[in-house]
């Protein structure tokens, strides 16, 4: 078990390095232009967001609509640290992620007693509260936007953030802690009566999920360099949830693929200018139907053959 595990780990990591190298080469030699490398950075940020939400929604089974809220906490916290405290980029990122995790913990303790629709609405409300706070407190510069954030995010950091996020969540899921989290999704009462401290694991999974959302927020802030509260509204939360649902709840590979596809797809649809969002919606509906009818495993197989970058999470 140990040997096999370590071999798999080294292989996955080597693969990630190869993919990274290939992308870096393509960018430096101009095969991928700066426009598309920008999209790749956003795709990687979305991978962090979707895989982290998958921990809360897919594995823990709590449908939450506040992921953009945690992202925004991370974004503002890290941006403010960079601007006012002059901390280094990595430290700012870390502080942003920790701030989001702390908020996740504070929100999680009272709300995780609720289930299903109720939790969904509470997290939605939380998302709005965060947005309105960011809009109204002085330090964030409200709707005018927080400016002057150093442009520190590059492909290297987002790529490895995504790899680390996937690795951490994958490791957790494969441990006794992960099994406890999944058992809560399956049957909370039975889980409790199998001796699992369910409240602890719910809050733990929620907090870890928020931590990585905060990390994504920090990466985003230092890439876009201007933060406007409106970006982190309800729509953004839904967008992330769509990635998770499309990729499959409790399916990390799926989350990665869905995040990449749903970031790139709108760009390809630019050719249809006015009908772009309409087409995007139609593609989403079609994708959901295909998934529901269980055609996805087949399609996914094709995808993973084409896109090697997804193999790093291969089981």
């Amino acid at each position, binding site marked *: 078990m140990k040997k096999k595990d370590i071999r798999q*780990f080294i292989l996955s990591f080597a693969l990630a390095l190869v993919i990274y190298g290939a992308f870096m080469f393509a960018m430096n030699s101009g095969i991928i232009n700066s426009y598309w490398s920008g999209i790749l950075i956003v795709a990687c940020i979305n991978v962090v967001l979707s895989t982290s939400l998958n921990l809360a929604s897919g594995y823990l089974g709590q449908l939450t609509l506040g992921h953009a809220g945690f992202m925004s906490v991370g974004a503002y916290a890290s941006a403010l640290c960079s601007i006012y405290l002059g901390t280094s980029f990595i430290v700012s990122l870390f502080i942003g992620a920790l701030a989001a995790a702390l908020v996740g913990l504070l929100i999680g303790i009272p709300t995780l007693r609720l289930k299903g629709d109720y939790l969904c609405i509470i997290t939605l409300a939380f998302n709005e509260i965060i947005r309105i706070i960011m809009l109204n407190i002085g330090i964030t510069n409200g709707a005018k936007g927080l400016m002057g954030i150093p442009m520190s995010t590059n492909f290297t950091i987002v790529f490895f953030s995504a790899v680390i996020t996937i690795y951490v969540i994958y490791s*957790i899921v494969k441990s006794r802690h*992960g*099994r406890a989290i999944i*058992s809560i999704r*399956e049957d909370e*009462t039975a889980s*409790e009566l199998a001796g*699992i401290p369910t409240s602890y694991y719910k809050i733990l999974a929620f907090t870890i999920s928020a931590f990585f959302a905060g990390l994504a927020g920090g990466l985003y802030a230092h890439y876009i360099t201007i933060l406007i509260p409106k970006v982190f509204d309800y729509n953004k939360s839904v967008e992330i949830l769509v990635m998770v649902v499309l990729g499959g709840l*409790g399916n990390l590979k799926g989350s990665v693929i869905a995040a990449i596809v749903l970031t790139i797809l709108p760009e390809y649809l630019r050719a249809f200018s006015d009908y772009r969002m309409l087409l995007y919606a139609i593609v989403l509906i079609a994708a959901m139907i295909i998934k529901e009818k269980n055609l996805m495993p087949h399609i996914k197989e094709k995808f993973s053959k084409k896109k090697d970058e997804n193999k790093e999470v291969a089981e």
Partner: protein
Amino acid sequence: MALLKTEGLGIQFGGLKAVDEFNFEIDKNQLFGLIGPNGAGKTTVFNLLTGVYKPTSGQITFDGKSILKMSPTQITQFGIARTFQNIRLFKNMSVIDNVKVGLHHSQNYSLIASVLHTPNYYKGEEAIEEMALSLLRVFDLDQYAQVKANNLPYGKQRKLEIARALATSPKLLLLDEPAAGMNPTETAELMETIKIVREKFSIAILLIEHDMKLVMGICEKIAVLNFGTVLAFGTPDEIKNNPDVIAAYLGDEE
């Protein structure tokens, strides 16, 4: 000293006294049957013993300690495990993972250890794997280890639920109608399994069952519950000949 003892245990839902003045004792390693007509409050007793419901009166002592203030999770860790009347497995998890959830507390490697894959993590996971497999072997389920629990046939799902309960290393196992929906052959097989489990794990078993052949065949003591109170208490032979019990099941002569 009794392993489990209840004194004046009762719970009231609104005006309804579902269980009232329930007194009984289970000794270590005893096979105890709890029977009674439908709606007598048998499952409610299970829910009280496992902390799912909080009693409105009375006392529960387990292994010399009151468990009234404990949560279901704590009670399980303290040594009472149970199965459910309508099977409640973790359906989308593999058979072995179901048992591994029950083994959660047998190892204590931390979250950080699992992320960093420390030696502790491997040691823990290997131990869990081994224990889970040996438990599955007891129930002849080891060849299904990687099958999704939901895809097991009904009888095997019942067995898996018992295996999961045993994984928490209980001192007392509560089985809620384990033979429900089984044919006579499966029931006979289950009787054997229950006997083996008790000997192999040297635990006490409290059993709710409607199948009289099963109850009379393996239980050493039986309590009959009717309208939430204990109607009779004794060995299978005493119960069989008790006029009150016959009246409760078949009705009075008048």
